[in-house]
């Protein structure tokens, strides 16, 4: 049990002057792509360049929720594929990602909203997911801790329940993918920010880092909150806003909540970690910022809503709160695929919803990078969909990033 002789999670190789493929960003998405490049395509002439440390971006700042309850085929398809992959990844990586499908409960607060949830549930069923609409006693049995009887301002009409939804240990995801990719021979460099992307005649040829230039055939950008900044190195202006999003945890207590529950009259969601802390999050702070420092107003707002679901929370105190820069596109969905520069591709726009998709993005992007052709699951997420009018707006919220 001592685990005394653990080697370091990733190797520290000498940096070569040239790689076939450079992945910018050592978050979950970039590292998953590296893993699947090696595993599915045998491609290991790859460098992952991480500006700070592995998983230090949104990957280890998120609230660890995985689920696939999306209305539109494109968003559902990718996330449901991810759920299937999550179920197998601990064994595949030989690293316990602590996937706990405790069930995801999405609360509706009016009959109209519940009807809308039912449409979503039906769409999911058509896609092969298991999902239920719960009301009354059935909902109370599913979430015994939930206060359904109080005179709350927004009473609960019912819920969409996805049993396979749940939580996964987020930093384990980054380390698990990194370890496996490194074992396969892929080079991962931390503290190596890309400062320039060099392009000649509309074709990528190298990237610059403080450690030197790296020549390469293709570059994949997967930097979440820094997407605008890195894309601008290639002269691109993305339809993305960088918005502050917060999360926080209470002190640890004995198990008091099994499921993951989301409150929809203004956003507030909650789950309890294996360690006993309640993790809470909600809507974005609503303003553009790279500061990764949140406003207290949002914390109060999220907590007030959480208390309506679970009044007992008033006795607990927050231990930590933090924030991440969410990259939110004009339709609230990701932008994945090739860019109008030869050899350059991107994955961004996941905002505060991309953790769940991590293995699916990695799987699909690896296929794209290996075959130079866009696989079906990510085809709808093209960069040019905004010009073509083919938005994927699950929420129907319109072109306002902070509404998504």
């Amino acid at each position, binding site marked *: *049990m*001592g*685990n*005394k002789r*653990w080697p370091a999670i990733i190797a520290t190789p000498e940096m070569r002057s040239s790689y076939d493929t450079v992945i910018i960003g050592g978050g979950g998405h970039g590292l998953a792509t590296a893993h699947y490049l090696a595993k599915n395509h045998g491609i290991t002439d790859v460098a992952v360049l991480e500006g700070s440390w592995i998983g230090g971006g949104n990957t280890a700042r998120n609230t660890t929720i995985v689920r696939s309850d999306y209305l539109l085929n494109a968003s559902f398809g990718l996330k449901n594929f991810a759920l299937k992959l999550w*179920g*197998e990844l*601990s*064994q595949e990586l*030989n*690293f*316990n990602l*602590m*996937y*706990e*499908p*405790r069930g995801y409960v999405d609360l509706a607060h009016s009959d109209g909203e519940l009807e809308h949830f039912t449409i979503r549930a039906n769409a999911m069923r058509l896609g092969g997911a298991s999902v239920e609409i719960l009301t009354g006693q059935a909902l109370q049995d599913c979430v015994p*801790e939930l*206060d359904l009887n*109080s005179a709350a301002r927004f009473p609960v009409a019912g819920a969409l329940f996805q049993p396979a939804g*749940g939580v996964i*240990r987020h930093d*384990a995801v980054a*380390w*698990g993918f990194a370890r496996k990719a490194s074992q396969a021979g892929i080079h991962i460099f931390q503290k190596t920010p890309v400062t320039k992307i060099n392009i000649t005649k509309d074709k990528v040829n190298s990237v610059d880092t403080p450690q030197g230039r790296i020549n390469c055939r293709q570059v994949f950008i997967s930097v979440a909150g820094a997407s605008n900044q890195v894309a601008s190195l290639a002269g691109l202006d993305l339809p993305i806003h960088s918005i502050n999003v917060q999360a926080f945890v209470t*002190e*640890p*207590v*004995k*198990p*008091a909540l099994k499921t993951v529950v989301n409150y929809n009259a203004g956003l507030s969601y909650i789950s*309890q970690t*294996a*360690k*006993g802390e309640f993790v809470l999050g909600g809507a974005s702070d609503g303003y553009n910022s790279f500061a990764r*420092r949140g*406003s*207290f107003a949002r914390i*109060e707002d999220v907590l007030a809503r959480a208390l309506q679901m679970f*009044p*007992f*929370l*008033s*006795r*607990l*105190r927050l231990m930590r709160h933090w924030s991440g820069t969410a990259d939110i596109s004009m339709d609230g969905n990701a932008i994945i695929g090739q860019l109008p520069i030869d050899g350059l591709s991107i994955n961004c726009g996941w905002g505060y919803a991309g953790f769940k998709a991590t293995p699916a993005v990695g799987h699909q992007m690896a296929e794209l990078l290996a075959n130079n052709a866009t696989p079906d699951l990510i085809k709808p997420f093209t960069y040019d969909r905004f010009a073509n009018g083919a938005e994927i707006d699950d929420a129907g919220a319109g072109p306002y990033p902070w509404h998504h």
Partner: protein
Amino acid sequence: MSHVPDCRLPDGGLIDRNITLNFSFDGIAMQCYSGDTLASALLANGQHLVARSLKYHHPRGIVSAGLEEPSALVTVTDQYGSTPNLKVTEVVMRDGLTVTSQNNHPSLKRDYGRFLKLGGGALSAGFYYKTFLWPKHAWHKYFAPIIRNLAGQGRVDPTPDHAHYDKRRKFCDVLVIGSGPAGCAAALTAAQGGATTILIEQDHILGGSLLYSQDSIDGLNATDWAADTSEALHALSNVTVMTRTLAFGQYDHGLIQAIETGQDGDINRAIMWKIRARKIILATGAIERPVVFPGNDKPGIMLANAVCQYIRRFAVSPGTRAVVAVAAEEDRLRAIAAMQDAGIEIAAILSPGDQIISATGRLHVNAFTWKNDKGQRQRTKCDLVVWLDANRAYICPDGRKADISC
């Protein structure tokens, strides 16, 4: 426990011996005085062992006298229901509290969770990632629920909370956080210069380190100066003094968030304050740095200024025979003087450069082992270790990296 020893010193301290308060700890009736914190109340009753650590369920005692308390967390039940994970050092005593230890089964003294430790060395960092992996789904179905039940500290009261809480705002020219000598002097000076001033203190009285100091200011002894200054501040119309108020964060554009804890008779159990000030002065003092060595988490091992505080402010003797491992000379001399005044025997005083080997004892420290500068191994019996590091003055186990499970 049949006999509860009385560790209260016969006189001294900023406690009101005319007002006796009753409370219970794990079902045992105890008494203390008005002015006590739960920490000093427990120590006065000889109760050092108050908790079990989160992961290995090691016995844990009271290390500090302030908010930095790392391990002495308990559940406190009052008229509002029960509240888990309160630091004993932050609970101001009032009559009728029911206090229970957490995270142990069946009891604090015999806790089965400690067997987690058996079967090998410590659970290293990353242990969970490599373990409980097979067979597929076993983590979720079998291991995670077990780990969840062992983890967590207290139990949250599931009933709705009927207490009132409020949110309020304040504005001022100068906000001073912390009411030690620096904070009190700053608030007084600002106010006398005409600034609207707020002084925030998390303790229930002003004074900070003055409350257990033997120093004098302006010819007055420290506690008298604190009392006089407190009176002077209260008398000024442009000063608002907020005790029992903890400033916990500064947000964009100088917004300070603070939480005021109500006392018996208040309508609100707590008030969340949002304070905006033109100038903010942090006068929050320092937190002592502990020394890292095997066994350093045993009950009876305490920070130097905490020991001074228990003796001087609360008139409680935290032990009978002490080993002193306090690197900073001033703090060392202060701690030794306080212990001598309390009649505590000094078993040994370590010099900076000595090599600490370990503290031993099952439920309470009973011996301390170290090597002196001549390389001689020393061991002495004790029931109190007073420690404080300064720039890693003590060499910890063999200069090797210590493998310490917690």
